[in-house]
Protein backbone atom coordinates (compact mmCIF):
# COMPACT_ATOMS: atom_id res chain seq x y z
CA UNK A 1 0.00 0.00 0.00
CA UNK A 2 2.78 2.38 0.98
CA UNK A 3 4.70 1.46 -2.14
CA UNK A 4 1.68 2.16 -4.31
CA UNK A 5 1.10 5.51 -2.61
CA UNK A 6 4.76 6.45 -3.00
CA UNK A 7 4.63 5.59 -6.67
CA UNK A 8 1.44 7.59 -7.11
CA UNK A 9 3.00 10.62 -5.44
CA UNK A 10 6.07 10.24 -7.61
CA UNK A 11 4.25 10.27 -10.91
CA UNK A 12 1.69 12.90 -9.91
CA UNK A 13 3.81 15.88 -11.04
CA UNK A 14 4.49 14.17 -14.36
CA UNK A 15 0.79 13.48 -14.91
CA UNK A 16 -0.04 17.07 -14.01
CA UNK A 17 2.63 18.37 -16.38
CA UNK A 18 1.33 16.15 -19.17
CA UNK A 19 -2.23 17.33 -18.54
CA UNK A 20 -1.09 20.94 -18.59
CA UNK A 21 0.92 20.54 -21.77
CA UNK A 22 -1.59 18.45 -23.66
CA UNK A 23 -4.77 19.93 -22.34
CA UNK A 24 -6.82 22.38 -24.38
CA UNK A 25 -4.35 22.54 -27.24
CA UNK A 26 -4.88 22.83 -30.96
CA UNK A 27 -2.50 20.22 -32.38
CA UNK A 28 0.20 21.59 -34.66
CA UNK A 29 0.99 18.08 -35.66
CA UNK A 30 -0.94 15.13 -34.27
CA UNK A 31 2.05 12.80 -34.38
CA UNK A 32 4.04 15.10 -32.12
CA UNK A 33 1.36 15.07 -29.46
CA UNK A 34 1.04 11.29 -29.54
CA UNK A 35 4.80 10.95 -29.21
CA UNK A 36 4.80 13.42 -26.33
CA UNK A 37 2.09 11.53 -24.46
CA UNK A 38 3.99 8.26 -24.89
CA UNK A 39 7.20 9.93 -23.77
CA UNK A 40 5.55 11.26 -20.63
CA UNK A 41 4.29 7.75 -19.94
CA UNK A 42 7.84 6.40 -20.12
CA UNK A 43 9.09 9.28 -17.95
CA UNK A 44 6.51 8.50 -15.29
CA UNK A 45 7.72 4.91 -15.18
CA UNK A 46 11.28 5.92 -14.27
CA UNK A 47 12.67 4.44 -11.07
CA UNK A 48 13.11 7.68 -9.11
CA UNK A 49 11.37 11.03 -8.93
CA UNK A 50 14.30 13.01 -10.28
CA UNK A 51 14.83 10.60 -13.13
CA UNK A 52 11.15 11.12 -14.00
CA UNK A 53 11.53 14.89 -13.91
CA UNK A 54 14.65 14.84 -16.10
CA UNK A 55 13.05 12.40 -18.53
CA UNK A 56 9.96 14.60 -18.86
CA UNK A 57 12.27 17.56 -19.65
CA UNK A 58 13.77 15.50 -22.46
CA UNK A 59 10.23 14.73 -23.65
CA UNK A 60 9.59 18.44 -24.08
CA UNK A 61 12.79 18.93 -26.09
CA UNK A 62 11.82 16.00 -28.33
CA UNK A 63 8.39 17.58 -28.72
CA UNK A 64 9.95 20.91 -29.71
CA UNK A 65 12.06 19.13 -32.32
CA UNK A 66 9.00 17.32 -33.67
CA UNK A 67 6.93 20.52 -33.91
CA UNK A 68 9.63 22.52 -35.69
CA UNK A 69 10.19 19.72 -38.19
CA UNK A 70 6.45 19.60 -38.86
CA UNK A 71 5.97 23.37 -39.14
CA UNK A 72 9.15 24.91 -40.50
CA UNK A 73 11.01 21.93 -41.97
CA UNK A 74 11.24 22.21 -45.74
Amino acid at each position, binding site marked *: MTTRLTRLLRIAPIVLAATFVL*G*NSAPADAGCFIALAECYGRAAAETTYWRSVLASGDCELDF*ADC*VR*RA*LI*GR
Partner: protein
Amino acid sequence: MTPLFLSVSLIVAGAVEPLHARLVSAGPPLPSSLIVGRAVCAGTTWLLTDRPVLIAVTHDRRAVTVRPVRGLQPADRPWGLACLTDGTLWTLATSRALVRLAPEAIARERIELRWPRLVLFGWLDRVLFAQLPLPIARPILASSPPRDTGEPAPWPKFFGRAAEARSDLLARNLINCGIGRQRHLPCWFADDRRVTVSDGASARSISFAALYGADVDASAPIWDVAIGGGDTLWLLVTAVAPSRGHKAGGRLVKTNREGVEQSSLQLPTAARTILSATDTTCVVLTVEGTLMEVRSQ
Protein backbone atom coordinates in the same frame (compact mmCIF):
# COMPACT_ATOMS: atom_id res chain seq x y z
CA MET B 1 24.17 16.87 -72.10
CA THR B 2 20.58 17.52 -72.78
CA PRO B 3 19.47 20.65 -71.00
CA LEU B 4 16.17 20.51 -69.26
CA PHE B 5 14.03 23.36 -70.27
CA LEU B 6 10.56 24.18 -69.23
CA SER B 7 9.48 27.66 -70.00
CA VAL B 8 6.33 29.03 -68.58
CA SER B 9 5.12 32.57 -68.63
CA LEU B 10 2.16 34.08 -67.00
CA ILE B 11 0.88 37.58 -67.20
CA VAL B 12 -1.18 38.42 -64.19
CA ALA B 13 -3.83 41.05 -64.63
CA GLY B 14 -2.50 44.29 -63.27
CA ALA B 15 1.04 43.06 -62.87
CA VAL B 16 3.80 45.30 -64.11
CA GLU B 17 6.01 42.64 -65.62
CA PRO B 18 5.48 38.95 -66.37
CA LEU B 19 7.54 36.25 -64.70
CA HIS B 20 9.08 33.39 -66.66
CA ALA B 21 10.12 30.06 -65.16
CA ARG B 22 12.51 27.46 -66.52
CA LEU B 23 14.32 24.46 -65.11
CA VAL B 24 18.04 25.02 -64.91
CA SER B 25 19.44 21.84 -63.35
CA ALA B 26 20.81 19.14 -65.57
CA GLY B 27 22.17 16.77 -62.91
CA PRO B 28 20.36 14.25 -60.73
CA PRO B 29 17.63 15.61 -58.45
CA LEU B 30 18.62 16.88 -55.04
CA PRO B 31 17.85 14.58 -52.08
CA SER B 32 14.22 14.61 -51.00
CA SER B 33 14.91 14.34 -47.26
CA LEU B 34 13.59 17.11 -45.02
CA ILE B 35 15.54 20.36 -45.22
CA VAL B 36 16.30 21.43 -41.65
CA GLY B 37 18.50 24.41 -42.47
CA ARG B 38 19.41 26.82 -45.25
CA ALA B 39 22.15 29.41 -45.30
CA VAL B 40 23.55 31.71 -47.96
CA CYS B 41 27.01 33.23 -48.13
CA ALA B 42 29.78 34.04 -50.60
CA GLY B 43 27.88 33.02 -53.72
CA THR B 44 26.76 29.66 -52.39
CA THR B 45 23.53 28.41 -50.85
CA TRP B 46 23.92 25.63 -48.29
CA LEU B 47 21.15 23.21 -47.38
CA LEU B 48 21.23 20.78 -44.47
CA THR B 49 18.87 17.82 -44.50
CA ASP B 50 17.85 15.48 -41.70
CA ARG B 51 19.72 12.49 -43.19
CA PRO B 52 22.04 14.47 -42.47
CA VAL B 53 23.44 15.66 -45.80
CA LEU B 54 25.06 19.01 -46.60
CA ILE B 55 24.23 20.39 -50.04
CA ALA B 56 25.99 23.31 -51.73
CA VAL B 57 24.52 25.11 -54.75
CA THR B 58 26.69 27.77 -56.36
CA HIS B 59 24.88 30.85 -57.63
CA ASP B 60 26.86 31.44 -60.81
CA ARG B 61 26.95 27.95 -62.37
CA ARG B 62 24.22 26.31 -60.23
CA ALA B 63 26.70 23.53 -59.53
CA VAL B 64 25.39 21.13 -56.88
CA THR B 65 27.54 19.23 -54.37
CA VAL B 66 25.99 16.69 -51.99
CA ARG B 67 28.00 15.38 -49.03
CA PRO B 68 26.91 13.21 -46.07
CA VAL B 69 27.73 14.91 -42.78
CA ARG B 70 30.41 13.13 -40.76
CA GLY B 71 31.69 13.53 -37.22
CA LEU B 72 28.36 13.96 -35.47
CA GLN B 73 27.45 11.97 -32.37
CA PRO B 74 24.96 9.08 -32.62
CA ALA B 75 22.19 10.96 -30.78
CA ASP B 76 22.57 14.15 -32.82
CA ARG B 77 19.59 15.38 -34.82
CA PRO B 78 20.82 18.55 -36.54
CA TRP B 79 18.54 21.53 -36.87
CA GLY B 80 19.18 24.93 -38.45
CA LEU B 81 22.09 26.24 -40.48
CA ALA B 82 23.98 29.51 -40.25
CA CYS B 83 26.69 30.74 -42.59
CA LEU B 84 28.59 33.68 -41.14
CA THR B 85 30.68 36.39 -42.78
CA ASP B 86 33.88 34.44 -42.15
CA GLY B 87 32.39 31.58 -44.18
CA THR B 88 31.92 29.24 -41.21
CA LEU B 89 28.85 27.00 -41.11
CA TRP B 90 27.04 26.25 -37.84
CA THR B 91 24.19 23.96 -36.89
CA LEU B 92 22.45 22.79 -33.74
CA ALA B 93 23.51 19.15 -33.52
CA THR B 94 21.16 18.92 -30.54
CA SER B 95 19.20 21.66 -28.83
CA ARG B 96 22.16 22.10 -26.49
CA ALA B 97 25.10 21.69 -28.88
CA LEU B 98 26.26 24.16 -31.52
CA VAL B 99 28.50 22.48 -34.08
CA ARG B 100 30.72 24.02 -36.75
CA LEU B 101 30.65 22.16 -40.03
CA ALA B 102 33.52 22.39 -42.49
CA PRO B 103 32.49 22.87 -46.12
CA GLU B 104 33.46 19.22 -46.62
CA ALA B 105 30.54 18.39 -44.27
CA ILE B 106 32.73 17.32 -41.34
CA ALA B 107 31.87 18.43 -37.79
CA ARG B 108 34.98 20.34 -36.66
CA GLU B 109 33.96 22.05 -33.44
CA ARG B 110 31.33 21.48 -30.76
CA ILE B 111 30.13 24.03 -28.25
CA GLU B 112 27.88 22.88 -25.41
CA LEU B 113 25.15 25.42 -24.69
CA ARG B 114 23.78 26.32 -21.28
CA TRP B 115 20.22 26.67 -22.54
CA PRO B 116 18.55 24.71 -25.34
CA ARG B 117 17.88 26.54 -28.60
CA LEU B 118 14.84 26.09 -30.78
CA VAL B 119 15.87 27.68 -34.09
CA LEU B 120 19.15 28.85 -35.61
CA PHE B 121 20.00 31.32 -38.38
CA GLY B 122 23.02 33.35 -39.40
CA TRP B 123 23.37 37.14 -39.42
CA LEU B 124 26.69 38.77 -40.30
CA ASP B 125 29.26 37.30 -37.88
CA ARG B 126 26.66 36.15 -35.35
CA VAL B 127 24.27 33.26 -34.91
CA LEU B 128 20.63 34.22 -34.43
CA PHE B 129 18.54 31.91 -32.27
CA ALA B 130 15.50 31.43 -30.04
CA GLN B 131 16.33 30.04 -26.64
CA LEU B 132 14.19 27.83 -24.42
CA PRO B 133 12.22 28.37 -22.27
CA LEU B 134 10.42 30.82 -24.53
CA PRO B 135 9.81 34.21 -22.89
CA ILE B 136 6.38 35.83 -23.14
CA ALA B 137 6.16 39.49 -24.20
CA ARG B 138 9.95 39.76 -24.28
CA PRO B 139 12.35 39.42 -27.23
CA ILE B 140 12.33 35.84 -28.41
CA LEU B 141 15.24 36.02 -30.85
CA ALA B 142 18.76 36.92 -29.84
CA SER B 143 22.15 36.94 -31.50
CA SER B 144 25.69 36.33 -30.37
CA PRO B 145 29.03 35.32 -31.81
CA PRO B 146 28.93 31.52 -32.09
CA ARG B 147 31.60 30.85 -29.45
CA ASP B 148 30.25 33.44 -27.02
CA THR B 149 28.06 31.75 -24.41
CA GLY B 150 27.46 35.00 -22.50
CA GLU B 151 24.43 37.26 -22.64
CA PRO B 152 23.15 37.47 -26.23
CA ALA B 153 21.87 40.67 -27.87
CA PRO B 154 18.07 40.78 -28.27
CA TRP B 155 16.72 40.91 -31.83
CA PRO B 156 14.12 43.62 -32.39
CA LYS B 157 10.40 43.25 -33.02
CA PHE B 158 9.87 39.57 -32.16
CA PHE B 159 8.21 39.22 -28.78
CA GLY B 160 7.12 35.91 -27.31
CA ARG B 161 3.42 35.29 -27.86
CA ALA B 162 1.26 33.74 -25.17
CA ALA B 163 -0.77 30.56 -25.71
CA GLU B 164 -3.39 28.73 -23.71
CA ALA B 165 -1.44 25.50 -23.57
CA ARG B 166 2.31 25.07 -23.24
CA SER B 167 2.39 22.91 -26.33
CA ASP B 168 0.78 25.69 -28.38
CA LEU B 169 3.43 28.05 -27.09
CA LEU B 170 6.00 26.35 -29.29
CA ALA B 171 3.88 26.40 -32.42
CA ARG B 172 2.84 30.04 -31.86
CA ASN B 173 6.41 31.17 -31.43
CA LEU B 174 8.17 29.28 -34.18
CA ILE B 175 10.10 31.77 -36.28
CA ASN B 176 11.57 31.29 -39.71
CA CYS B 177 14.01 33.55 -41.52
CA GLY B 178 14.55 33.97 -45.22
CA ILE B 179 17.47 35.07 -47.35
CA GLY B 180 18.79 38.47 -46.35
CA ARG B 181 20.96 41.04 -48.01
CA GLN B 182 23.85 42.82 -46.35
CA ARG B 183 22.65 43.65 -42.81
CA HIS B 184 18.97 43.08 -43.52
CA LEU B 185 17.33 39.79 -42.62
CA PRO B 186 13.64 38.95 -43.19
CA CYS B 187 11.99 36.79 -40.50
CA TRP B 188 8.40 35.88 -39.63
CA PHE B 189 6.30 33.88 -37.24
CA ALA B 190 5.36 30.64 -38.98
CA ASP B 191 1.63 31.41 -38.81
CA ASP B 192 1.89 35.13 -39.62
CA ARG B 193 1.16 37.15 -42.76
CA ARG B 194 3.80 39.75 -42.03
CA VAL B 195 7.53 39.66 -42.57
CA THR B 196 9.79 41.74 -40.36
CA VAL B 197 13.01 42.94 -41.94
CA SER B 198 15.64 43.90 -39.41
CA ASP B 199 19.24 45.03 -39.36
CA GLY B 200 19.65 43.95 -35.77
CA ALA B 201 18.95 47.42 -34.37
CA SER B 202 15.74 48.55 -36.05
CA ALA B 203 13.00 46.67 -37.83
CA ARG B 204 10.01 47.23 -40.06
CA SER B 205 7.07 44.94 -40.76
CA ILE B 206 5.80 44.26 -44.25
CA SER B 207 2.34 42.96 -45.10
CA PHE B 208 1.48 41.25 -48.37
CA ALA B 209 -1.93 41.41 -50.03
CA ALA B 210 -0.87 38.29 -51.95
CA LEU B 211 -1.25 36.25 -48.75
CA TYR B 212 -5.02 36.72 -48.57
CA GLY B 213 -5.93 34.68 -51.65
CA ALA B 214 -8.00 31.51 -51.67
CA ASP B 215 -4.98 29.48 -52.77
CA VAL B 216 -3.02 30.32 -49.63
CA ASP B 217 -2.56 27.95 -46.68
CA ALA B 218 -3.89 30.18 -43.89
CA SER B 219 -2.13 28.20 -41.14
CA ALA B 220 1.34 29.03 -42.52
CA PRO B 221 0.91 31.55 -45.37
CA ILE B 222 4.57 32.44 -45.85
CA TRP B 223 6.67 29.58 -47.12
CA ASP B 224 9.82 31.55 -47.86
CA VAL B 225 11.13 35.06 -48.44
CA ALA B 226 14.27 36.45 -50.05
CA ILE B 227 15.51 40.00 -50.40
CA GLY B 228 16.49 40.26 -54.03
CA GLY B 229 18.17 43.61 -54.15
CA GLY B 230 17.69 47.20 -53.13
CA ASP B 231 13.99 47.29 -53.84
CA THR B 232 12.86 43.70 -54.37
CA LEU B 233 11.37 41.02 -52.19
CA TRP B 234 10.52 37.53 -53.42
CA LEU B 235 7.67 35.87 -51.54
CA LEU B 236 6.97 32.16 -51.84
CA VAL B 237 3.35 31.59 -50.87
CA THR B 238 2.31 28.34 -49.19
CA ALA B 239 -0.10 26.35 -51.34
CA VAL B 240 -3.30 24.96 -49.83
CA ALA B 241 -2.78 21.60 -51.51
CA PRO B 242 0.31 19.69 -50.37
CA SER B 243 2.80 18.41 -52.92
CA ARG B 244 4.03 14.85 -52.46
CA GLY B 245 2.46 14.80 -49.04
CA HIS B 246 4.22 17.94 -47.79
CA LYS B 247 3.46 21.61 -47.68
CA ALA B 248 5.25 23.62 -50.34
CA GLY B 249 5.29 26.98 -52.04
CA GLY B 250 2.84 27.17 -54.90
CA ARG B 251 3.09 30.78 -56.02
CA LEU B 252 6.06 33.10 -56.30
CA VAL B 253 5.39 36.80 -55.90
CA LYS B 254 7.76 39.62 -56.64
CA THR B 255 7.10 42.74 -54.59
CA ASN B 256 8.78 46.02 -53.85
CA ARG B 257 10.27 46.66 -50.42
CA GLU B 258 6.87 47.79 -49.15
CA GLY B 259 5.29 44.46 -50.09
CA VAL B 260 3.36 45.84 -53.06
CA GLU B 261 3.03 43.14 -55.68
CA GLN B 262 4.91 43.70 -58.94
CA SER B 263 4.24 40.34 -60.52
CA SER B 264 3.25 36.82 -59.63
CA LEU B 265 3.67 33.33 -61.01
CA GLN B 266 1.87 30.10 -60.24
CA LEU B 267 4.83 27.74 -60.27
CA PRO B 268 4.54 24.82 -62.70
CA THR B 269 6.13 22.67 -59.98
CA ALA B 270 5.77 23.53 -56.29
CA ALA B 271 8.89 24.78 -54.52
CA ARG B 272 10.50 23.61 -51.28
CA THR B 273 12.67 26.66 -50.72
CA ILE B 274 14.29 29.69 -52.32
CA LEU B 275 17.96 29.19 -53.12
CA SER B 276 19.03 32.63 -54.33
CA ALA B 277 17.59 35.92 -55.47
CA THR B 278 18.53 39.13 -57.25
CA ASP B 279 16.37 42.03 -58.41
CA THR B 280 15.45 40.16 -61.58
CA THR B 281 15.96 36.47 -60.82
CA CYS B 282 14.87 34.01 -58.15
CA VAL B 283 16.04 30.38 -58.08
CA VAL B 284 13.96 27.84 -56.17
CA LEU B 285 14.33 24.16 -55.34
CA THR B 286 11.27 22.28 -56.55
CA VAL B 287 9.59 19.34 -54.83
CA GLU B 288 11.01 17.18 -57.62
CA GLY B 289 14.56 18.10 -56.58
CA THR B 290 15.23 20.30 -59.59
CA LEU B 291 16.33 23.92 -59.70
CA MET B 292 13.93 26.38 -61.26
CA GLU B 293 14.84 29.89 -62.26
CA VAL B 294 12.16 32.56 -62.31
CA ARG B 295 13.00 35.77 -64.15
CA SER B 296 11.18 39.03 -64.41
CA GLN B 297 12.86 40.17 -67.63
